[in-house]
């Protein structure tokens, strides 16, 4: 536990329950977008970056991040491209999404990172880029610490 006496802003942890898509536990920094993401043609699978011209995350890396996004769009190469990010060591650390599709489900399965959906509260209301998020897909919940990694 962090020592509250040296931390003037007491850390507040928010817990949101959801449905597990792929089991596992991981913690990391959140990367949040309210825009759906294309796999094939939308990401660079060697670098783990978004390349879609008009996407708000264009040029940004999702490698090792807790990626919160609405879901998948575009080509059926979605799963194959996120599959390649795993083989290339640049996949997100976890996937949190709000709209289920076959592209999204298969992509999460083959990326083999903890993944969750169907949250009891809107995760976009509670998670911002840079927040520290513990994804416990085994227990079906995420724990959010605002700001940065807790001590």
């Amino acid at each position, binding site marked *: 536990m962090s020592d509250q006496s040296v931390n003037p802003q007491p850390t507040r942890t928010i817990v949101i329950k959801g449905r597990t898509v792929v089991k596992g536990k991981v913690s990391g920094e959140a990367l949040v977008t309210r825009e759906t993401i294309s796999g094939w043609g939308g990401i660079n699978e*060697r670098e783990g970056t978004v390349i879609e011209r008009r996407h708000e995350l264009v040029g940004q890396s999702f490698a090792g991040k807790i990626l919160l996004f609405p879901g998948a769009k*575009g080509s059926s190469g979605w799963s194959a491209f996120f599959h390649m990010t795993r083989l290339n060591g640049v996949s997100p650390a976890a996937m949190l999404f709000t709209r*289920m*599709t*076959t592209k999204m489900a298969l992509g*999460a399965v083959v990326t083999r990172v903890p993944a969750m959906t169907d949250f009891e509260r809107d995760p976009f209301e509670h998670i911002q880029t840079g927040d520290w998020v513990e994804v416990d897909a085994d227990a079906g919940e995420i724990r959010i610490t605002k700001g940065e990694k807790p001590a």
Partner: protein
Amino acid sequence: MQLTDFEKAMLDGVNGRAKAAAMDLLVRYGEAVGAERLVETNNVAGAFNASTPSVKRIVDKGFDAVYSELNLDSDEIVEIPHMAVNTWQLITGIDNDNWALQGADESLVQMQRDSEAYLGERGVNMCATCTPYQVGNVPIKGEHCAWMESSAVIYCNSVLGARTNVEGKESTGAAALTGRIPYWGYHLPENRFGTHLIEVDIAVDDMMDWGLLGYFVGEQVEENKPVLNNIAHHPNMVKLKHFGAAAASSGGVELYHIPGITTEANTLAEAFGPHKAVKTIHYGHKEREAMYMKLQSATDRKVDFIMLGCPHNSIEQMALIAELLRGKRIHPDTALWVHTPRAIKQVAERNGYLRAIEAAGAVVMSDTCPAISRRLPKGVRVIATDSAKQAHYLPAIANVQGWFGSVTDCVRAAISGQWQGRV
């Protein structure tokens, strides 16, 4: 997820390690998506071929390793038997004839040929196109399919009334070996009704206009199910091919209805079934103009490369391009590649279209496209295309500027070397 005894036996390895790995992936995937069971399919269209440099290091371990890793998501290398059901290879990375123009090295071409021999022996039909429905795989209404390729899926669901979700490389690989796919989404009749009403307030007739309408609809409804009303001109296969490809690029549309035209709805009431439209959206001159501008990502009018045939061209599109090029020469600084399935290329050759196109200095490509292969002529900075889908993807993939226009605008640019389409 509920499995039948036969499916449980496959999962337990009674029919070999490959089918067990395939069932394992289908169970993981089915549970992730929330399916209650699997459904039988005898029509799989996927991406099996090894044709990219990134696959090469897996090919070194053998083609069973490629299928195991990339088509089954299996850590174990399993021996791949003959496909259990009808299976088709979609578009691939290299044109087996024009590979040198693509800048592919010979070892990669040999790898693709070896891969095709391996897959061919196992019953993967090498149609090598994004449009299987143009070259003999035309599913019938209600047929359960497992297809990849978003532009083919939307055509399959909407125009033909067959049933498929957008599958991926791994799920089609597993379906081909088991004849099973999760019974979810568009396989269920209750999920096939429209959600959004699109009132088309202007006449939409030529292929470019159908592309613009599709791009608008996809952007508006995302992965919902649009129903188009007030269509002034009856479309054809080419126009709906472009409409669907565009709607699946700007959004995630996998099914639409045009009452009286597409298979599953004769009336608006049939299209929405027990539901009401959640939203009515109008498409008029203003929206058309906005889409046209959105698809332009170029500023430089000097064009280096023209891409036609996304999705792959039909024979009548080949005829039109031959007619536009007959007796002309394309600009020496400009390359024009026209893409069509290999089977249609053969017809085009027989008709003299191929000769007319090649005599003008253009190239007819099969098996692939620049977005899939990531191969363009050297030094390209500015491209032009008649495809909303290609205009959406290629500039990002190849880091180039892109113009979008009609096929006539594109051929004219190939001849003059300058984009003269409206800006």
